[in-house]
């Protein structure tokens, strides 16, 4: 391999390269100017913007359709558009989280470590980028660990806070075991196939018969790692605790970005390892070595139901949003379980929407937390009248999370159900629908506390201009896509078409 080839191959990983570069820049800059916190944010945004640019540029790059033709390290990457989509999602989420950090009061105590904060975010970002495009189990594992390590630290970033420290400890123990199980699964997979590459495994699966029980065990163990990232029941246990304890910005980040990376990894794993071909009607012809459909259907039902039911009982808004994010993972799994391009479209649409509404909800939670110092739902009493604009925004986000028109959340649900009904998975569709009814309880409960209950304090709260701008930038698309969703779907279509 000559160096020219290396740089040629780097073309597949420009965004990642840029992120690595900016990671280094951040670290160095912080060493040189330890006090310049604002600048770090700006540098981060710059880096993200650049990476985003390159990522979007990749949309128009022609990649070889069969990754096994690639040479060098690029063999480990799947340069497909679905991956690009998830990268875009992650980059946007990162940008927002960087912005949110500016508004977070609770992170104020850690501003002396802002350099580390941004560096860790970039590390996580880098990990997720590779996790998304991983075409190799080792890469998957390594990048997953990179994401995990960064997020362990970020979750415990407010180290003087008990909650944050505890979250971080639980996270690392849980994550360590989950990734350990995954690693063991990978090792079994390696033992059966002799390779780490998805496409090699796929090719092998088409030819040879593999002991199924072992294959099942291996598959489930590998899924454990991914399931833990996307917080699918029964691998979700860390989610509420960590979400509650972690700084809210990081919670938002985990709930969107790391979930996106997990789902992208899942999609790539399934699509590149276990799909024989795509039928003309969009359904995937599965290589019958692993019961993906059954597994995903069961887990989808479990995930959304457990998420929603438990969310009913939460008084802490962050914790409630944690369960809500579990429930949404359930919907996404349901879309995944269709195992078709339609399902993929539904996932893409849903995730685009989920990005907006979930980030939005967390942003408002952050802003409210700044004022009241609490995420407890009782402290939301009467906030709707005290801060009408932000209250309305939170209302929009929550309604969207419920999936009611005319918000984008409805479009996400619509496409999900379109895929499910098209696949004649009516029972799952009904369960999902009932779940969305249940979810109304706890989403509306927030609004109830904000608007229907009288608070002790009546003094109005005026949000800063910046926060209004950010909230608007999330709320307006949520409404807009709810009414006119052509661009959303067009994008999803481009993304899913290989």
């Amino acid at each position: 391999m000559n160096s020219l080839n290396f740089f040629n191959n780097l073309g597949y990983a420009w965004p990642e390269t840029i992120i690595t570069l900016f990671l280094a820049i951040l670290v160095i800059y912080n060493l040189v100017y330890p006090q310049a916190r604002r600048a770090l944010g700006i540098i981060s945004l710059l880096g993200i913007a650049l990476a985003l640019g390159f990522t979007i540029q990749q949309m128009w790059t022609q990649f070889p359709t069969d990754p096994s033709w690639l040479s060098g390290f690029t063999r480990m990457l799947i340069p497909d558009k679905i991956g690009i989509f998830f990268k875009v999602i992650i980059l946007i989420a990162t940008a927002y989280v960087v912005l949110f950090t500016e508004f977070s009061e609770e992170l104020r105590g850690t501003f002396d470590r802002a350099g580390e904060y941004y560096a860790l975010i970039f590390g996580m970002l880098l990990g997720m980028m590779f996790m998304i495009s991983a075409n190799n189990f080792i890469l998957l594992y390594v990048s997953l660990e990179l994401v995990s390590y960064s997020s362990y630290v970020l979750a415990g970033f407010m180290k003087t806070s008990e909650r944050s420290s505890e979250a971080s400890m639980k996270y690392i123990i849980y994550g360590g075991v989950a990734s350990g199980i995954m690693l063991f699964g990978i090792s079994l997979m390696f033992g059966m196939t002799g390779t780490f590459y998805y496409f090699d495994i796929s090719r092998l699966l088409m030819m040879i018969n593999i002991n199924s029980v072992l294959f099942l065990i291996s598959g489930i163990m590998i899924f454990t790692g991914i399931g833990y990232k996307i917080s699918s029941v029964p691998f979700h246990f860390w989610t509420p605790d960590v979400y509650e304890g972690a700084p809210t910005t990081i919670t938002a980040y985990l709930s969107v970005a790391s979930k996106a990376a997990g789902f992208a990894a899942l999609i790539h794993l399934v699509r590149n390892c276990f799909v024989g071909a795509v039928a003309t009607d969009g359904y995937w012809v599965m290589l019958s070595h692993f019961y993906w459909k059954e597994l995903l259907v069961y887990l989808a039902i479990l995930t959304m139901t457990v998420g929603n039911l438990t969310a009913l009982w939460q008084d802490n808004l962050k914790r409630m949003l944690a369960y809500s994010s579990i429930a949404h993972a359930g919907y996404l799994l349901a879309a995944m379980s269709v195992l078709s391009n339609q399902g993929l479209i539904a996932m893409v649409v849903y995730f685009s929407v989920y990005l907006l509404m979930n980030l939005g909800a967390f942003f408002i939670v952050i802003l409210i937390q700044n004022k009241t110092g609490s995420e407890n739902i009782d402290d939301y009493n009467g906030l709707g009248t005290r801060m009408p604009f932000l209250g309305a925004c939170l209302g929009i986000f929550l309604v969207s999370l419920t999936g009611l028109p005319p918000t984008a959340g409805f479009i996400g649900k619509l496409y999900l159900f379109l895929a499910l009904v098209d696949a004649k998975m009516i029972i799952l569709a009904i369960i999902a629908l009932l779940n969305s009814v249940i979810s109304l309880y706890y989403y509306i409960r927030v609004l109830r506390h904000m608007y229907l209950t009288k608070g002790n304090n009546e003094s109005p709260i005026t949000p800063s201009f910046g926060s209004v701008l950010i909230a608007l930038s999330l709320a307006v698309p949520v409404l807009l896509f709810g009414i006119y969703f052509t661009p959303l779907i067009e994008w999803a279509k481009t993304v899913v078409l290989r």
Partner: protein
Amino acid sequence: MTDMSTLSTFLTHIGLGHFLFISGMLFSLGIYGVVTRKNAVMVLMGIELILNSANINFVAFARYGNYGFHGQLAALFVIILAAAESAIALAIVLNIYKTFNNVNVDEIDKLRE
């Protein structure tokens, strides 16, 4: 007699199965350790056992399946990752000790339903 002979054959002819047995045991012991130990550091030890068991697998599969050096490389990476993880984990445990004054995992359950 066949049972005895298969068993003795098994015992005397070291093959992949032996290593897999060791790794399976290590894995299970690791998880058992994680699950049962109070002390956070000992929980981490359990995790190390899990990682080691996987590593044995990698190397053993590569050797018996003649898969080249991929297995060894994987083991190498895992060792490196384990080192990094331990560093972070210990930092976190130290922090826990600072805030909670103990490192008993079961007592750190403020975040719960």
